[in-house]
């Protein structure tokens, strides 16, 4: 019983990891140009121009935009790329 219980908890933990995606959030800063941020979104995230512009405007007006959501490893790679372009980006685990 107890062994089964342990296994069940591990499975639950793994499921939680899978169920809770990681969000990539880009934050506003006064320095990065709007055209530059749009270009970076197109390059790094593969957004078409209108979607990239929409997210850029969301960053500009609301202070942040969730630009990608999914598994942690890929989210980290995206944040690393965004930091390479000197954008303010963070990883946040989505709430259940």
């Amino acid at each position: 019983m107890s062994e089964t219980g342990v296994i069940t908890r591990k499975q639950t933990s793994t499921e939680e990891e899978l169920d809770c995606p990681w969000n990539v959030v880009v934050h506003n800063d006064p320095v990065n140009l709007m055209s530059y941020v749009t270009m970076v979104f197109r390059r790094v995230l593969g957004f078409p121009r209108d979607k990239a512009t929409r997210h850029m405007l969301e960053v500009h007006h609301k202070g942040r935009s969730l630009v990608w959501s999914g598994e942690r490893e890929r989210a980290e790679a995206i944040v690393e790329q965004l930091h390479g372009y000197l954008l303010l980006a963070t990883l946040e685990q989505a709430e259940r």
Partner: protein
Amino acid sequence: MRFRRHSADSWELCDIHPLFGSLLEELPQAASRHKKARGRLYPDPCPSEAEKSMRRDWEDHVRPGLEQLFASSREIVQRDVAALSRSGEGTRLVIPAGHLDAWLNALNQARLIIVEENNFTEPDLDHREPPDLATRRGVALLKVHFYAHLQELLVEAVG
């Protein structure tokens, strides 16, 4: 100052005012003063206090790559700027198309650093009056605006 295609694989800045020529020459050095802007150039990847191990991994594995990328961009720009030409036809600079990304990166480093060094705020940067060039702060603001203008031109060029 004009920015135009120079050849199939290069761009040219021409009719550069001497003041802007000196700001171009200053760019690699301005982009290398990382000390005061470290927190902005290498931001925390995760705001959650619970993710201490991620922060440590980031410092160990990601940050060195970013430092290398930023240094490499500055070196490319340094080499290009060394070829700045001053002649009877005016000051001009040829930038290979393959170097545009390095320029964008170095310009951004310099702008972020100058903003941090001078504690410029959003209203300072949005202020449309010409900066007071009799002050160090005014000259710094001019640099931020000039590098931003150049960045706009390059973003347009790379599409």
